[in-house]
C-alpha cells in the first residue's frame, strides 16, 4: 500500500516539475527578455559552472547547518525547561519581549560584536531560528498531557526519566515541524547574509551574477539554492519517517 503511494507521490512531483519547466519556457519566449532566459540556457550554465556552484553551495550548506544546529541546541533545552516553574518565570518574559523584534535588524549589532565574518552571519540566522523554534518547543512541552506524566511518575520515574522518556519523545514530532519551517527561513536569511562582505556562498554568486548582468548564472544560482533547500527537506523527511512511526 505505502509502496504504491510512494510511487504516486514521485509521479506527482515529476509532473509538477515538468509543468514548471514548461511554464518557464513559455514565459521566456513570450517575454523575450534577457531577464528571463530559457530553461535550456540555465541548464547549460548549471552544467558548465557545476564546479563553481557546488563549491559555493557547500559554503552555503555549512552556514545553514551551523545555524540550525546552534539554534536547536539552544532552543531545545530552553523550550523543554519551561516546565520548571522557576526557570519559566525568569526566562519567558525575556523571550516574549525579544520575540516580536524583527531579528534581522540585529545584523549591524552582530557585525560590531562579531566582525564581518561568518560568525555574524551564523549568529544572525541562528537568532531568527532560535525564536521561531523556542516558542514552538515551549508550547509543545506545555501541551503534553499531564496523564503521561502521572503515568510515568506512578511507575517510579524520576525527574530525569520524565524528560528522557516522556517530554523529549512526546515533542519530537513538533520539533521536526519547527525544523521544517526553519529550513525555509534559514535559506531566506542566508541569501541576505551572503549578499555582503563575502566572496563565497550561493547568495554571493547570485548577487555577483546580477551585478554583472549574467542572467544565466543568476538563474543557475537560484536553482542551486532551491536544490539546497530541497536536499534539506528530503533529509528531514527521512529522519521524520524514523521518528514519527507512532503518530
Amino acid at each position: 500500500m505505502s509502496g504504491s503511494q510512494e510511487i504516486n507521490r514521485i509521479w506527482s512531483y515529476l509532473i509538477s516539475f515538468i509543468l514548471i519547466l514548461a511554464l518557464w519556457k513559455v514565459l521566456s519566449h513570450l517575454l523575450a527578455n534577457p531577464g528571463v532566459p530559457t530553461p535550456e540556457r540555465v541548464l547549460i550554465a548549471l552544467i558548465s559552472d557545476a564546479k563553481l556552484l557546488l563549491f559555493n553551495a557547500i559554503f552555503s550548506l555549512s552556514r545553514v547547518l551551523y545555524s540550525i544546529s546552534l539554534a536547536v541546541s539552544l532552543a531545545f533545552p530552553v523550550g523543554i525547561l519551561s516546565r520548571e516553574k522557576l526557570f519559566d518565570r525568569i526566562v519567558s518574559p525575556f523571550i516574549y519581549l525579544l520575540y516580536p523584534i524583527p531579528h534581522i535588524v540585529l545584523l549591524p549589532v552582530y557585525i560590531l560584536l562579531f566582525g564581518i565574518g561568518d560568525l555574524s552571519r551564523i549568529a544572525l540566522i541562528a537568532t531568527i531560528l532560535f525564536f521561531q523554534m523556542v516558542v514552538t518547543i515551549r508550547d509543545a512541552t506545555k501541551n503534553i498531557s499531564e496523564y503521561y506524566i502521572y503515568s510515568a511518575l506512578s511507575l517510579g520515574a524520576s525527574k530525569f526519566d520524565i524528560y528522557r522518556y516522556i517530554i523529549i519523545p512526546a515533542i519530537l514530532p513538533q520539533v521536526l515541524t519547527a525544523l521544517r519551517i526553519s529550513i525555509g527561513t534559514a535559506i531566506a536569511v542566508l541569501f541576505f547574509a551572503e549578499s555582503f562582505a563575502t566572496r563565497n556562498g550561493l547568495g554571493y554568486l547570485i548577487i555577483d551574477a546580477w551585478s554583472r548582468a549574467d542572467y544565466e548564472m543568476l538563474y543557475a544560482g537560484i536553482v542551486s539554492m532551491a536544490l539546497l533547500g530541497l536536499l534539506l527537506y528530503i533529509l528531514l523527511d527521512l529522519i521524520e519517517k524514523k521518528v514519527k512511526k507512532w503518530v
Partner: protein
Amino acid sequence: MISVDRVSKVYEDGTVALKDVSFEVEKGESCSIIGPSGCGKSTLLFIISGLLKATSGEVRIEGRKIDCPSKDVSLVLQDYGLFPWMNVYENVAFGLRVRKVKKDDEKVIVNRTLDELGIKNFEKHYPKQLSGGIRQRVAIARALATNPRILLMDEPFSSLDALNREKMQNLLLEIWKKSRITFVLVTHSIEEAVFLSRKIVVLSPRPGTVKKIIENNSAGEEEYRFSDEYFRKCREVRKSIEFGVI
C-alpha cells in the same frame, strides 16, 4: 493494609472533591470504589497512589504514610495513560527501565507478563494500532510488570464493550487469585464492583463522602456471577445508591 484516614481534598480553585473519606483495605483483598462521576473517585486514587497530596487526613500503607509514589503501588489511569511513542514492549518495560532493572531480566519479566495477558503478538505494535481491549491489557501488563503489592485501577473497563468487559473482569479475577495482590478498583458499574471486589465503598455525589461500605465476601470466583448471592448484592448496592444514573 491500606488505610485511608479522614482524607479531604480541596483543589486550588476551591472545588471540594473529597470530604472526610475513611476506609481500609486488608492486604491481599479487593475493594471497589463506586460513585457518580465527579464525586472524587479519581482524586481519591491519585491520593492513595501518592501523586496528589490530601488537603487533610492521610493515607497509610502498611503503616507508612504515603506522600509520594511508592514502588509497591501501581496505578492504571482512566484512559490507560499508555505512551503513544513507545511500542507495547517498551510500554510494559517502562517501570523496569526506570528502576534500572538489567536488560536480560527485563526481557524475561516483560515476556512473561505479555504472555500472562495474552498480548505477546502485539509487542511491536504502537498503541494507536491497538483496539481498546488490547490497550487495556497493555496498561495492566505495564502496571503488573513491576510486581507491585497494590494495584489501583481507575475505571479500567468503562470504554470496553460488554463482552470484552466480562473477559477482562475474569482475567483480572484470575490474576488476583494467583498473585493475591491488593486491588483497589474505581468503577461506574455496580455489577463490576460486586463481581470483582470483596469490599465496596459507596461514595456520595461531590464532595465525595463515604456513604456506605458493603462487605461482599463471597466474591472471588468466576461462578459468582451466576449465583443468587451476586444478584442480591447487586440489589443491595443499587439501593444504597439513590442517585440513580451513575
